[in-house]
């Protein structure tokens, strides 16, 4: 089979199965069975699929997500989250879309430091979306910023994916990490601008209800009584990570513990709330991890059958101007990103893209950052961006996938804009590492 036939078979089968309404995880598994049959010599390929699932699921890197979910669910079901957001709402006064801004700031800080895009989306999604919806925000005002900031985890250091990329491409890890700081902050400021524009265009998207003016004493009471204790959980686990007491993978467990302790102190921990929290976290985890089970093998089938490497070689075989070539590579990453997970994409593309970039005269650090941005965007590209499903799992029941896709688009646009800026002004990435 030619590479494009393999590609058509694999992508075609998964898209058809999804379109007729097969659960996403089962669609992956069915496509895998088909692919294993064609490319891995029949029934023995299906055994490999199970072994892959075994390897994919017994992986410590998956520990943080359920625990960040648990943390968010406990925050929500004990009412601690509502209490904190009430206070923030009142402290910020009349600014339209204020909780959206809070989401960008909190999401940037949190996803950046935790380094986990899925974990951060899980936490903020379960924490903010229900709260903001009950306060009259339209869904895209909460879902969008969370999906946007989730991706920042891999741009701004610390970032495990950036370290892995630098190792695979044999470029300076430190320089790549530092190169991400300014572009990452620019991206966060684009997100803020997006919210500002959205509230200007559609004032009803965020409630602009009047809040009574507070005295200094009242403000202090809110700040120290309702905001600081919750914030301190986050601050403590960040200190633990920065101080080397805990790894980012371990931070989620302490986050959940911290919220549990707070709930005990504030006397709002009930058996009922605890049970709801575990069930809530479990539902989303199971849904996401069965997709992980199926998508791990799907990525491998794309590689093993030669479909994805054929695509990459074909796309890079044209004799194009450097910038056009860059856009081709970027486009290939976005296309693969709709169906593959990030690490497989890196393993597949780095050996071809980086030598090509070098021959085109690109700075490797700058190019590495562009690749990271493509990976960042692919977390939220329909149909299979993993963050989209995590969001679907944590958002209120009546949230449609269409709403989630539409919420993500402006924030993907921000990332694209940043890529354009980096092409025009490479110094945005290279100035800081060159210091």
């Amino acid at each position, binding site marked *: 089979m030619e590479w494009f036939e393999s590609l058509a078979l694999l992508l075609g089968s998964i898209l058809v199965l999804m379109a007729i309404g097969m659960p996403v995880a089962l669609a992956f598994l069915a496509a895998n069975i088909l692919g294993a049959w064609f490319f891995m010599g029949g029934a023995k390929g299906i055994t490999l699929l199970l072994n892959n699932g075994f390897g994919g699921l017994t992986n410590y890197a*998956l520990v943080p997500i359920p625990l960040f979910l648990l943390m968010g669910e406990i925050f929500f079901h004990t009412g601690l989250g509502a209490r904190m957001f009430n206070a923030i709402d009142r402290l910020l006064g009349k600014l339209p879309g204020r909780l959206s801004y809070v989401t960008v700031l909190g999401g940037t800080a949190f996803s950046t430091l935790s380094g986990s895009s899925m974990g951060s989306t899980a936490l903020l999604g379960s924490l903010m979306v229900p709260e903001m919806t009950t306060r009259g925000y339209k869904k895209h005002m909460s879902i969008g910023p969370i999906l946007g900031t989730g991706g920042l985890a891999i741009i701004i250091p610390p970032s495990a994916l950036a370290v892995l990329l630098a190792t695979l491409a044999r470029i300076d890890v430190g320089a790549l990490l530092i190169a991400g700081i300014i572009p990452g902050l620019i991206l966060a400021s684009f997100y803020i601008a997006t919210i500002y524009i959205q509230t200007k265009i559609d004032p009803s998207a965020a409630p602009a209800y009047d809040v009574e003016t507070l005295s200094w004493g009242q403000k202090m009471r809110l700040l120290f009584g309702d905001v600081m204790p919750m914030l301190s959980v986050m601050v403590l686990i960040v200190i633990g990570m920065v101080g080397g007491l805990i790894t980012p993978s371990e931070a989620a467990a302490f986050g959940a513990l911290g919220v549990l302790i707070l709930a005990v102190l504030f006397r709002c921990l009930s058996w009922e709330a605890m049970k709801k929290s575990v069930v809530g976290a479990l539902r989303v985890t199971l849904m996401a991890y069965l997709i992980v089970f199926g998508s791990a093998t799907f990525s491998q089938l794309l590689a093993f059958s030669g479909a994805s490497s054929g695509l990459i070689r074909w796309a890079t075989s044209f004799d194009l101007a450097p910038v056009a070539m860059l856009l081709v590579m970027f486009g290939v990453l976005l296309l693969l990103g709709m169906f593959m997970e990030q690490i497989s994409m890196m393993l597949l593309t780095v050996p071809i893209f980086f030598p090509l970039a070098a021959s085109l005269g690109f700075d490797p650090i700058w190019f590495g950052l562009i690749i990271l941005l493509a990976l960042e965007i692919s977390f939220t590209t329909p149909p299979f961006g993993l963050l989209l499903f995590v969001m679907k799992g944590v958002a209120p029941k009546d949230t449609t996938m269409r709403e989630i896709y539409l919420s993500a688009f402006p924030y993907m646009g921000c990332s694209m804009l940043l890529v354009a800026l980096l092409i025009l002004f490479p110094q945005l990435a290279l100035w800081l590492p060159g210091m």
Partner: protein
Amino acid sequence: METVGKLYRGFLYAMAGIAGVMLVWLMISVIMSVVMRNSGLQPFAWLFTSSEYAILYMTMLGAPWLVREKGHVHIELVTAALPIGMRRVVSRLVALLCVLVSLILAWKGAELLLGNITRNDLDVRAYYFPKWILTIAFPVSFGLMAIEFSRFVFGDNLMHSGEAGIHE
């Protein structure tokens, strides 16, 4: 027959219960190993390994329950566009396809399990652990998923609602 149904339901929910316990265990094991490490003790290596195994058990044991709860996310595109009669047919056919996939995986999972037992395969991490204790989750989980999906083939309750969008 009714007793069988009751027993089956009990088993399904017990497995989901274990999945929930596994989730809580993740938290406990991580906290224990960090506390031990930072107080100068050597954390038990099985804390780390058990949390990796817990993720597998959690996912596999909870998956059939999530089928019953319609918690596996799917997209309604075709089913939403069809008239009600056709929708019923397509919905049942999709569920049948899910049964088929689950059965194939349950069968190959059982084969893998038997292979692990006869080959005496070990999973090597901090310890050498008999692999069949882990892979037994496959035939059990996919077998039960096949049963749960078949309820959407033959039962009154359809998997698809007919409302456009992604459903969970």
